[in-house]
């Protein structure tokens, strides 16, 4: 996949945003992380609560740049892909190349639209954080654009 390519993802994603990243890195450092995130995809998102009878509420991407400081360490720990919106730092771009990972963009501000691509949602970690908990999402035909490819080429 090259920067700029469009794809539809089907499978599992794990949500994580600001406070979650601090906790993930602490738990990875102490080897106390109860789930295995190696090879997994992180989606920078904090959904709205699911109304009765719905799988999830609105669930679009948050600004990825806020997670830049934590990303190289997570990539080192085995995260394979990230989904978010906006630019990344030079350090992140280099780390993506080093670990042959990928950064996807998805449609910013289209949380209602994207919620229709989520077929399962379950909080699995740090539930006390509310919307910032880690949710395991099963997605079907989730639209993404490659923002930074595994060779470090960036769309921006």
């Amino acid at each position: 996949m090259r920067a700029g390519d469009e794809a539809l993802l089907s499978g599992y994603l794990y949500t994580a945003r600001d406070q979650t990243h601090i906790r993930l890195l602490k738990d990875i450092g102490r080897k106390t992380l109860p789930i295995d995130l190696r090879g997994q995809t992180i989606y920078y998102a904090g959904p709205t609560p699911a109304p009765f009878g719905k799988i999830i509420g609105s669930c679009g991407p948050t600004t990825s740049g806020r997670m830049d400081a934590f990303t190289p360490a997570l990539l080192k720990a085995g995260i394979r892909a990230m989904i978010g919106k906006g630019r990344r730092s030079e350090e992140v771009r280099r780390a993506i190349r080093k670990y042959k990972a990928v950064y996807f963009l998805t449609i910013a501000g289209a949380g209602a639209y994207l919620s229709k691509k989520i077929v399962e949602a379950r909080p699995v970690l740090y539930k006390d954080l509310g919307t910032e908990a880690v949710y395991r999402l099963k997605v079907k035909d989730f639209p993404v654009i490659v923002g930074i490819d595994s060779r470090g080429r960036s769309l921006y």
Partner: protein
Amino acid sequence: MRKVSAGKIQAVVSRLAIEANISLRKDVLRALKMAYSKEKAPRAKKILKALIENAAIASSERIPICQDTGMATVFLEVGQNVLITGGDLSKTINSGIAGGYKKGFLRKSVVIDPLLRVNTKDNTPAVIHTKIVPGGKIKITVAPKGFGSENKSLTNMFKPTDGADKIERFILEAVKKAGPDACPPYIIGVGIGGTLDKACILAKEALLRRIDKRNPRRHIAIMEKGLLKKINRLNIGPMGLGGKATCLGLNIEVYPTHIAGLPVCVGISCHATRSATAVI
């Protein structure tokens, strides 16, 4: 004195919080559709189409337009002949926000302390701006704003001799800095004049005005139109991936200021700029 009960105000605030987050403003939706019809770049067009579809899904399924249902700013215009009965006004507003965010399944994104960062779990407190005005009515506007775009807003204290050119450059720089990060196509609210605090409130108020309505002051209306054109030549586009639609609307509000100063605040807002108003 006209009596208005706190309970009534609370119910209205609650309804407005839900309405603002679920139904995209008509002026904004119209501007998105207009941008879609004008856009030539295929990718930009595709993204705009998804955003229009997003607004339709949100309103038909009653789920928020965006998962960041914001921190709520509440603008109150309270008629001086109104007597509010049965409760403390600030507490009433906050109860309305808490109720609306719970009932509407909106996200609770407010932390009690900016450094300790513990979630208040009901999205309160709101930021409340109150004006006392003539008459016997209360006008309430709930304007939730996400922080993806709030984070990109900028303020600067210019010299009084700097003039319009430097302000325009500053606004363009602010948009370039926001780039793809804050969910373009943007809506931009600018406050010019007053004091530091006044300029910031003006910038927020500017976002409440319909984006197809120009400032009644002619020189400001010309500045609004000129800036909008310049911003839309930056080729940032939807999601920052290029295109004509970088900004859907730009509103400027002004206020008298001091002989020694020229405060300017640029409030960047996303394509899901939200507000809902009611008069009691």
